[in-house]
């Protein structure tokens, strides 16, 4: 009974949505890249960079929203680096993506050490506080949990709606989806395949950095090493789980986060006391692998994912 009661508390779902927020932002970023045909394995490093830069912006007095903006810009720059190598030059998306993750992570750690050489414990900032949006409480089930979140969570949810709208209801979205399925058809229309792909990777990477910034500006109030801790890779799994569709990926992120919130509470319960805590910490990773196994069979992968486009080539 104790286990079931966990699911019935509003604080549980509030925590689940909070845990889901960075995943939602970064998953939308990855989804946009992949729908345009580019696998972005830079995600983990871009999230690390976003987490640090967002926090640093607030720390040096740019304000919280200044930090958010700075993270977005840095994410876009890393995306531009990724796109210029994978899209313009058609280099291996695996190697370049991992290279960007290594580069962004090490640059971030270096910058942290250079900017704050003397600190022993990470300095704190005044992070985003929950704002009360009373009207949301009327939504059934998730309503009360939605009504008490920080502004970045609302931004994450808005990102899902905007991504979904742009992808399925605008000419730009049609072109983006086509560029991930059949780039030659887009080129035949006189549109720039490379331009569309570069744009998608740049904007998508900006969103990944926002996902990272959520961790330092909203979930916690300081930056520490290893704080992204594989969330980027989880997001790649969530894109597959969501079958490359924004609303399904969103639900996947909520489910994943609910499970994460659940295992944290289970650790603290009487049942969890006898089980090594590492087992609980492993569960989200196992869950991601399980989600991939279940969904990969029938997944409609964008047909041109990881296929570089060379102009004039049939």
């Amino acid at each position, binding site marked *: 009974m104790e286990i079931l009661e966990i699911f019935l508390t509003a604080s549980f779902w509030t925590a689940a949505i909070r845990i889901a927020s960075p995943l939602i932002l970064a998953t939308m970023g990855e989804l946009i890249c992949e729908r345009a045909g580019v696998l972005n394995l830079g995600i983990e490093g871009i999230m690390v960079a976003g987490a640090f830069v967002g926090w640093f912006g607030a720390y040096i007095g740019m304000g919280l929203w200044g930090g958010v903006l700075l993270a977005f810009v840095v994410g876009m720059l890393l995306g531009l680096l990724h796109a210029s*190598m994978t899209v313009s030059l058609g280099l291996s998306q695996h*190697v370049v993506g*991992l290279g960007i993750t290594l580069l962004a992570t090490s640059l971030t750690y*270096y910058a942290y050490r250079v900017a704050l050489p003397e600190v022993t414990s990470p300095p704190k900032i005044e992070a985003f506080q929950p704002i009360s949006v009373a009207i949301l409480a009327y939504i059934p089930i998730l309503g009360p949990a939605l009504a008490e979140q920080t502004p970045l969570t609302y931004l994450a949810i808005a990102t899902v709606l905007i991504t979904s709208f742009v992808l399925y209801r605008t000419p730009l979205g049609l072109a983006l989806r086509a560029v991930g399925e059949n780039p030659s058809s887009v080129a035949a229309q006189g549109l720039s395949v490379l331009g569309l792909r570069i744009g998608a990777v740049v904007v998508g990477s900006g969103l990944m950095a926002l996902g990272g910034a959520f961790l330092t500006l909203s979930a916690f109030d300081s930056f520490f090493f290893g704080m992204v801790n*594989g969330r980027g890779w989880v997001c790649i799994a969530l894109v597959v789980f969501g079958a490359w569709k924004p609303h399904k990926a969103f639900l996947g992120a909520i489910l994943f986060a609910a499970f994460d919130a659940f295992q944290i509470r289970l650790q603290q319960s009487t049942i969890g006391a006898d089980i090594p805590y*590492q087992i609980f910490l492993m569960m989200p990773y196992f869950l*991601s692998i399980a989600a991939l196994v279940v969904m990969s*069979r029938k997944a409609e992968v964008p047909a041109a994912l990881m296929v570089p486009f060379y102009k004039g080539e049939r």
Partner: protein
Amino acid sequence: MRLEAIPNPSLSRRFLPPILALIATVFVASFLAMVAGGNPFAVLGLIIKGAVGSKFALLETLNRATPLIFTGLAVAVAFRAKLWNIGAEAQLYSGAIVAVLMGTGALAWSSPALIPAMIICSMSAGALLLLIPTLLKTRLGVDEVVTTLLLNFIFLLLVSLLLEGPLKDPMGMGWPKSARLLAEARLPRIVDGLRLHWGFGIALIAAFVIWIVNTKTTFGYAMRAVGYNAEAARYAGMPVNLIMMQTALLSGGLAALAGFSEVAGLKGTLTLDLSPGFGYSGIIVAMLALLHPLGVVVAALFVAGVFVGADSMSRAAGVPTYLADIMLATALLLMVVAVLLTKFRIMRD
């Protein structure tokens, strides 16, 4: 902008871009050293001195290169067949766990029996660990990049669990580390009095064997064919999935040897910080070596030198040691572009 293949690349065309990539890497490092308040010439000098400047430094670099040769080979073998094994870190730890399980007193064998048995069992553990994601890939179409990456996180937690539970050293004063390996289970030093263990020798042998396999055997040819064009290989009647699985067994086994050699050769015990990311650095090693097994040895020595040199530079000049990681990631990205430029010309249109 478009790429145009160069039919007969000249000598300068083939060698200039990679050399320029390395020079550019040094420029990036110098700039960042200046940002941190260091003198770039002094910083670079300290890195070189720290890597090869004394007998101690040189031996340290060779020791550090040992696991990198293994993980570099593991990645090179897998990437050549387009099997994206990013899980060398987990496979490394699986080999280390087996080394501890067998070497701390469970088997009362003498060295000539125990060490080969440990090598075989470690390799099997790593091989089986990579076989799972590979089977998921060939049977169910599950992307192996994410599954192998996630297994890294799972295995670090598993090692932490084992070190706080069943494998915890009762004499460890509460530290999360395993009991020490018996003397019979330790790899001896290559030369008496020099701090370099036989793991380095095994790594060189492994690189040579992989080179022979790649160039002289049908299996090597099959791995390349699958990587170059899996559809064509299948059309030619090659058992592509089987070759993929054999590649996985080889790659996982090689990565596990890194863990075995660190435990049995260098440290003598298993701790949570056994590998400071050797699995990930193996990707850099393999790419800098252009996936060539003998190149892996050279690249591993270079990468190890940068790490060891940066450690000692950091102590002397106060520039953060992460400069090494930046240099290597930069070198990786620039090298990928440089290799493209050896074969293609970038044209404006």
